[in-house]
């Protein structure tokens, strides 16, 4: 689903609209508005973190890409690892760098696939706080997770996808504990 929303896959039927505009391959303005964090980091193992993020900033046509990249890595707590290559980093540090890459162009729509994977408690809290701030500034987030507790407080709407079909799509209401029995019923657990 996230690949479809990011424009990496073409839907076999229907149309995807992001910020009210159809997501077509040639439409740079819409694509520029999307940030994606997938299971993969999108980082090149032979480039340093700074080079990786500078390259990403260049792809989005940002001014002063080197400075922006350094600032993004610093914000992710990787300011002292600018010269390190991704393959030497732990899973958690790689995830932080991947998050910094996804956010470097300040997207208006952020697609997150299990964003808390590999993060330690501090980094997870920091990401949650960062997302809260950005949501307050109008960022749209689609967060996919199997661990509802990680994202419950961030959500305004909850959707449950079972075998490729919507089993539920509704505003989030109440505590997770009240939703959990229904969720387990929907997924057949």
């Amino acid at each position, binding site marked *: 689903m996230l690949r479809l929303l990011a424009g990496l896959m073409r839907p076999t039927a229907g149309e995807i609209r992001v910020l009210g505009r159809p997501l077509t391959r040639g439409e*740079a303005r819409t694509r*520029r508005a999307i940030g994606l964090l997938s299971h993969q980091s999108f980082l090149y193992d*032979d480039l340093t973190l700074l080079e990786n993020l500078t390259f990403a900033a260049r792809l989005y046509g940002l001014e002063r890409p080197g400075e922006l990249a350094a600032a993004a890595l610093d914000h992710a707590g990787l300011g002292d690892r600018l010269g390190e290559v991704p393959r030497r980093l732990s899973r958690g540090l790689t995830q932080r760098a991947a998050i910094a890459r996804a956010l470097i162009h300040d997207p208006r729509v952020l697609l997150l696939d299990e964003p808390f994977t590999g993060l330690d408690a501090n980094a997870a809290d920091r990401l949650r706080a960062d997302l809260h701030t950005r949501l307050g500034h109008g960022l749209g987030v689609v967060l996919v997770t199997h661990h509802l507790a990680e994202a419950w407080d961030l959500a305004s709407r909850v959707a449950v996808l079972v075998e490729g079909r919507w089993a539920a799509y509704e505003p989030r209401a109440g505590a997770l504990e009240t939703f959990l029995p229904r969720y387990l019923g929907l997924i057949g657990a």
Partner: protein
Amino acid sequence: MPDSLRLALAIAAKDIRAELRSRTALQSALVFAALVLVVFNFARDPTVLSATDLAASVLWVTFALAAMVALNRAFNVERENAALDGLLLAPVPREALFLGKLLANLAFVGTVELVTLPLFTLFFNVSLGAALPGLVGVMALATIGFVSIGTIFSAMAVRTRFAELLLPVLLLPFMVPPLIAAVQVTSRLLSGRPLSEMWGWLRLLALYDIVFVTLCMLVFSAVVDE
């Protein structure tokens, strides 16, 4: 500078920087090229076949095989951590992406060819002399053609399980026309024949480049997008 060209240069610079750090494609292609030259040199019986008769064919077989080794890496580097998705996600026109990869591949294959050339003169005792500018020209013309095709097939093959096997199978038939033309021109250049004799072959190479660079740029989007 137009946005597409700026993006293409950024992509090419990224590939070159990554290659300079890992040196996997360049080193393996250079070792392979040297090996091919050594094998051809010692397999030849100088009393039956003179070096000049064989030189042009050996040179282009070496270039073609070494290019294949270098081109195999072109999109392999994008497979690591699904980096290709990161490229496709960005607002980068597919033509710019193709041009960037093509420029990087031309730099790799061109480097391999320029390093191989002195080894070739050494092994085959061929004096390039006045033929050198013409030879560099034909190398450029032929290389642009088969590297543009190689770039698109490399993008196609990288999504399969047998990329290293599939690339030569797809690419070799398309390499035949520029290789025939390049061997014909090189052979005449090494024999000291006038350039006027080679215009037909040179025109064929130029036409091949124009047709296939344009075609590859147009179909690249269909190859990389799901």
